[in-house]
């Protein structure tokens, strides 16, 4: 029987290695896999590259992981926002590397990794500072920038419903980066609000088919936001 459900956080986090590239779902706090990030903090992997839209807020979650010195490099579109104090401290102290990527290019680079596309030409950032030292080329008289796939070793994903195959649905705007990141990592770990019986999810409405998912941990809301 295929069963991707795991019974404990330790099992969910097993095998994440130092130096991993970790894709973190979420947009701000919404759709962010809070419990798994806590689990990663406890698990101990370090020297990580984190790919996420934001660079953490406050002192918990991703900010805590960074504060512990476990993140060598962050790839994101919006590092500096209200409350990104830990990132600001580390960055001004030269203790974290930053790659800023326009949000759509970030999403598309991750999708490309999941879809087996090595690189693509996007009009975004053409002629700007973020395209410096990148190949630029004109198609039909318009300028484009060559951007490369951005695969992860691990993806941490928040979902709404999951079954034992790892089929997933999301809730409203908590979908955001999660389905794209789920495609793009060798090890995709999901925290799901609800576990449901196989066959319960409507085949037309499954957003992430289980083929992209490695492990599913049941994390009801109260526990996730504790």
């Amino acid at each position, binding site marked *: 029987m295929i069963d991707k459900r795991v019974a404990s956080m330790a099992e969910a986090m097993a095998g994440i290695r130092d130096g991993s590239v970790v894709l973190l779902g979420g947009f701000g706090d*919404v759709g962010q896999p809070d419990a798994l990030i806590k689990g990663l903090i406890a698990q101990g992997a370090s020297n990580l590259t984190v790919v996420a839209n934001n660079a953490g807020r406050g002192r918990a979650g991703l900010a805590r992981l960074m504060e512990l010195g476990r993140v060598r490099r962050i790839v994101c*579109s919006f590092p500096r926002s209200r409350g990104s104090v830990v990132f600001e401290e580390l960055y001004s102290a030269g203790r974290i590397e*930053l790659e800023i990527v326009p949000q759509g290019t970030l999403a598309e680079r991750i*999708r490309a990794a999941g879809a087996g596309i090595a690189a693509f030409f996007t009009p975004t950032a053409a002629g700007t500072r973020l395209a410096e030292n990148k190949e630029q080329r004109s198609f039909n008289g318009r300028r484009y920038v060559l951007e490369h796939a951005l695969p992860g070793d691990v993806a941490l994903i928040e979902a709404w419903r999951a079954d034992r195959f790892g089929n997933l649905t999301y809730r409203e*705007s908590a979908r955001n980066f999660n389905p794209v990141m789920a495609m793009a990592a060798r090890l995709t770990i999901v925290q799901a609000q609800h576990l449901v019986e196989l066959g319960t999810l409507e085949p037309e409405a499954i957003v992430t088919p289980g083929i992209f998912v490695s492990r599913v941990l049941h994390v009801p809301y109260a526990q996730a936001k504790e």
Partner: protein
Amino acid sequence: MPDTRTTPAGLSRSAIARRIAEDIPEGWYVNLGIGIPTLIADHVPPEREVIFHSENGVLGIGPAPAPDAVDPWLINAGKEPVTLRPGGAFVHHADSFAIIRGRHLDLCVLGAFEVAENGDLANWTTGRNDAAAAVGGAMDLAVGAKRLWVAMEHTTKEGAPRLVSRCSFPLTALASVLRVYTNLAVIDVTPEGFLLLETAPGVSFEAVQQRTATRLRRPTA
């Protein structure tokens, strides 16, 4: 530099938003940036169906919820709680930016630091000691929407013009802005440079020209 004490105030931020809302017809798909643009939605009458899109994968955003009716899973790109109108839909981030980059939005309205007379936009970083500036979706929106309008104060707080011959700040996108709405005027970007379409009540062409760092043309009609 013009004397800020004599600068005509022109429109309030809300009035700029209201002015822009007048120009958005029924049926358009529209993305609104942070700042003045966010205020536009409140000025589109509910019977005029305009579909608002947000970078985080929401089509059909409605007004802010009552404080006791906030749904924590439903936010806009500014990370504020919102509602979904009937006919709304959720997509993931790659599809959301396919919508943006693929020229499916009829309109995007962004704030700006500067707009150049060739349509260059600078709105993501002042470039000063700010290597960690947050670009978010601005560059995608600026190159991707069918129409890019800018909503901003005509000058900085210090009175420096924001409509310039060439941007001094790092660019968000080249030759993208089609129109600028400020507290003083509505100005089109044309192949011949800035074209002043209208001024705010009580504001003269000369007052706008004085606060603009490059030549404004007037309609020939």
